[in-house]
């Protein structure tokens, strides 16, 4: 195993000569390893994993890790800086591949996702979903249910979120310990090629060597200048997730995933919400059609209003008996428009990479707006545009796609490469979800993006839609709100994007994301059978609704006719 690893390193080093490619993540480059079905027998993600065999390897590795020093005089085969979801995913896969692995964490295992992000927010959203349902008299009545009164205990809700985070954190820690990943405590700094120093404040620092290093330091909430955070009345998601208060009226600056999810939580718990969005439309990252419907379902009927096309130029926390003051300026003209007076403000304007103190200057790497520049294989690029050998960066720190599971996928991709199998992650196959009620999920391109690509590359696209209103299971739940939308190439049937708004959309998206990852075309997946009655039939209907100009597709894409 060790030899394989060594071989892989040299292989990737050779490949790195021409690896100056750094196309934006969302634009599929020419190289698509996991492109169309059956085209690339070497595509690693297509391998059906032989689970028992792999497990045995992992166990063997766990037994040997730590006992035997890494090959070639290195302390470790792989050192990961940052034990978030990305680092964790990479560590697990590395052990599976037989690499001696260590992970350095300066804070708590689990990173943002587990401690201050996806995980505790899901606990709050679980509460908000139930509150919403219990409060909806019409909904309950139509199901024949009678509920006399509902209420909640803020501290108990907060505890639920906190308990969930600690539970997941200990699961994560245990899974790494069980596999023999060394968890090193302290802040990791790269001091030179394949060399990392780490240590806690007040303790002697240690230096270790590693054949490969992955930077996975993640991100922190981004706070625009002019905004004063006090953690009580003006705060970020970090504080909000502790649910120390439920303000009567809260302004949420930013209407992306984070803002939208928190609006769901706060309105369910009785707050009124005002969105402040710099762009002209709410939910700017979403497919426009989905955003429009989401506004109808998630914004308009709720106690929410919004200001679009404005910046919050100055936010002052509540003090001296005064409320939180938010000064709004026009996003274009920068003229003062209005001053909001609210009880609290949540800053959800995105996240900034956490890459300070990494010692990147020691290896001639310059961050771009804080992000570590990487190529499509997550190899770190130095100031001259050359690949830094044996150094990778995954997750929020590289800014390609700031999602926990994207970080993990990137980590696995890197481990694949250092294990000797070239691998390029198809970011267009990574799904994203927003856990509002109902949920929103998406994978691939939005319709405008797909149209742009189609114009550029000269092909036709088609769009089909299905509604949750026609789905038996959704109607049984009395949750018929929602649509699913498929964007595909009219000629080949290639799936370009799928967008869902509706009950359990986040769980439904994977059929589409898997299809994109595996290159399954719509004319093939439409024959897959879905259990009845399930929500998955919404996608079944969607695939069946798609019409592909098969004459063209067969001649072009299936040269080896059956």
């Amino acid at each position, binding site marked *: 195993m060790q030899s394989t690893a060594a071989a892989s390193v040299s292989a990737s080093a050779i490949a790195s000569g021409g690896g100056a490619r750094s196309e934006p993540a969302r634009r599929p480059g020419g190289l698509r390893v996991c492109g169309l079905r059956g085209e690339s027998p070497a595509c690693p993600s297509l391998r059906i994993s032989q689970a028992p065999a792999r497990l045995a390897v992992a166990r063997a590795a766990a037994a040997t890790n730590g006992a035997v020093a890494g090959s070639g005089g290195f302390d470790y085969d792989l050192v990961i800086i940052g034990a978030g979801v990305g680092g964790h995913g990479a560590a697990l896969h590395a052990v599976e591949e037989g690499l001696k692995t260590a992970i350095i964490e300066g804070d708590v295992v689990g990173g943002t996702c587990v401690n201050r992000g996806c995980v505790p927010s899901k606990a709050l959203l679980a509460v908000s979903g139930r509150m919403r349902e219990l409060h909806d008299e019409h909904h309950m009545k139509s199901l024949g249910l009678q509920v006399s009164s509902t209420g909640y205990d803020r501290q108990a809700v907060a505890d639920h979120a906190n308990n969930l985070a600690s539970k997941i954190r200990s699961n994560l820690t245990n899974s790494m310990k069980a596999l023999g990943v060394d968890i090193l405590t302290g802040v990791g700094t790269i001091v030179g090629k394949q060399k990392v120093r780490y240590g806690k404040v007040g303790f002697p620092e240690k230096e270790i060597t590693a054949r490969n290093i992955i930077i996975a330091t993640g991100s922190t909430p981004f706070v625009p200048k002019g905004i004063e955070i006090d953690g009580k009345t003006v705060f970020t998601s970090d504080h909000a997730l502790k649910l120390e208060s439920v303000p009567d009226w809260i302004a949420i600056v930013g209407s992306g995933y984070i803002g939208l999810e928190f609006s769901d939580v706060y309105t369910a718990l009785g*707050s009124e919400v005002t969105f402040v969005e710099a762009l002209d439309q709410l939910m700017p990252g979403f497919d426009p059609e989905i955003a429009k419907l989401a506004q109808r379902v998630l914004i308009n009927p709720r106690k929410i209003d919004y200001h679009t096309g404005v910046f919050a130029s100055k936010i002052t926390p509540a003090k001296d*008996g005064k409320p939180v003051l938010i000064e709004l300026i026009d996003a274009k003209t920068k003229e003062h428009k209005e001053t909001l007076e609210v009880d*609290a403000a949540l800053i959800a304007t995105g996240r900034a990479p956490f890459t300070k103190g990494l010692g990147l200057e020691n290896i001639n790497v310059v961050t771009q707006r804080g992000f570590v520049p990487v190529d499509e294989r997550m190899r770190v690029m130095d100031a001259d545009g050359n690949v830094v050998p044996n150094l990778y960066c995954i997750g929020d720190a590289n800014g390609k796609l700031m999602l926990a599971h994207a970080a993990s996928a990137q980590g696995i991709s890197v481990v694949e490469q250092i294990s000797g199998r070239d691998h390029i992650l198809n970011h267009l196959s990574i799904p994203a979800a927003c856990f509002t009620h109902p949920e929103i999920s998406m994978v691939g391109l939005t319709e405008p993006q797909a149209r742009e690509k189609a114009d550029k590359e000269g092909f036709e696209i088609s769009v089909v839609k299905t509604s949750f209103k026609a789905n038996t299971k959704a109607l049984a739940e009395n949750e018929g709100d929602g649509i699913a939308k498929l964007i595909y190439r009219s000629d080949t049937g290639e799936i370009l994007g799928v967008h869902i708004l509706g009950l359990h959309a986040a769980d439904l998206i994977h059929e589409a994301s898997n299809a994109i990852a595996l290159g399954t075309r719509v004319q093939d997946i439409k024959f897959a059978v879905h259990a009845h009655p399930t929500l998955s039939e919404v996608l079944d209907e969607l695939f069946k609704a798609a019409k592909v100009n098969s004459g063209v597709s067969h001649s072009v894409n299936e040269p080896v006719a059956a």
Partner: protein
Amino acid sequence: MASLASPSLSLHTVPGRARLAAAAGAPPRRRRVAVVRAKVREIFMPALSSTMTEGKIVSWTAAEGDRVAKGDPVVVVESDKADMDVETFHDGIVAAVLVPAGGTAPVGAPIALLAESEEEVALAQARAQALSQGPSREPHPPHAVAAAARAPPPPAPVAAPATKGIATPYAKKLAKQHRVDIAAVVGTGPHGRVTAADIQAAAGINPKPKVAPPPPPPPPAPPAAVRPAPPMASGAVLPPLPGGRVVPFTTMQAAVSRNMVESLSVPTFRVGYSMTTDKLDALYEKVKSKGVTKTVLLVKAAAMALTQHPAVNASCRDGKSFSYNTNVNIGVAVALEGGLLTPVLEDADKLDIYLLAQKWRVLLKKARTKQLQPNEYNSGTFTLSNLGMFGVDRFDAILPAGQGAIMAVGTSKPTVVADKDGFFSIKSEMLVNVTADHRIIYGADLAAFLQTFAKIVEDPEGLTL
């Protein structure tokens, strides 16, 4: 004890009409009012889904002055679910658009006026003007039945309101829905902001008791203004008995409850009268096959009697004057599952029993499917409640607000009757009990009315004319 859901919207609409009649000059009042009702129709914001409470006008496909035919799409409405074309139910000319594109209106609120012919266009426009100049809460709130007819008037705008025009998101939404001018509302929330409760108070809606009051936020914002107690806190709430089940009122039940409580402010008295019904029963047997019910016959009889006794068809609206109604519109109490409605047979004195019967069937169907238009349940001038079919021999009805009298009819049953010569015979006899507002209707008025009514019932040939 029978109780009646009074047409809770009556106060709303009738003055609106009266004002309109005044605005349009004062030609023969009777005709004028009838014309208004028949020829100018309101196009209402439709309920496009069961959860829709308000709708946004995306665009008007018909412009003012356009002639439209029944079934033509006139407007595109964005509901909480989708954009939908809305068709008109009548032929006519779009005389006035009350809610322009981009505006929102609660379900059931008029969004345009449809005139039947060119002549009515001006009338409709005058009416549109009257509507728009009306009080801010002129449009019906979303739940017609629950409309707060007797809401406390909005707090008089203070000369120099302390509010800086800061209103919470929900307050803004409610203000838009109920056409409340936020600038005129004095905010009682923290830092003087206008809250949803302020708007509800201004619009005269009972704020729902907050089920889950969120704990006060720890941020050290000292309560600048203590929230006043809910404006409509009424009566002590009795503790529930153990083992019982508490089922909150539906909106209709809440309206009934409110109207019943309100009726306590009116001094009423009752007069009973027994009459023989053999001839009426015989007539009923004859016309039964044509779909005429006993109730319809009684409505007709009451209407005929009312034309001779206009005092009983009057009402006292302000405590200072008689309001004589030009039309005889008879509301009939109908028990519905979990509620009570009084669909109104308009101009019952002018229509023959067959037409009345036909109209009644339509109203009943609409009542059961909750599709009554406001004028079909709030325009009554007199109410009839018949419990005879249950074998009830006599009962006593509560006077609905805005009306002068209500008639409670028992069953007609064979009774031994002695005539003036001392001969006994068995005759069907029915007891009728009328409750009336003694401010305007005196004992003799009611007695005379009942006498006339009894004459008509005992010699019912006139009913078929």
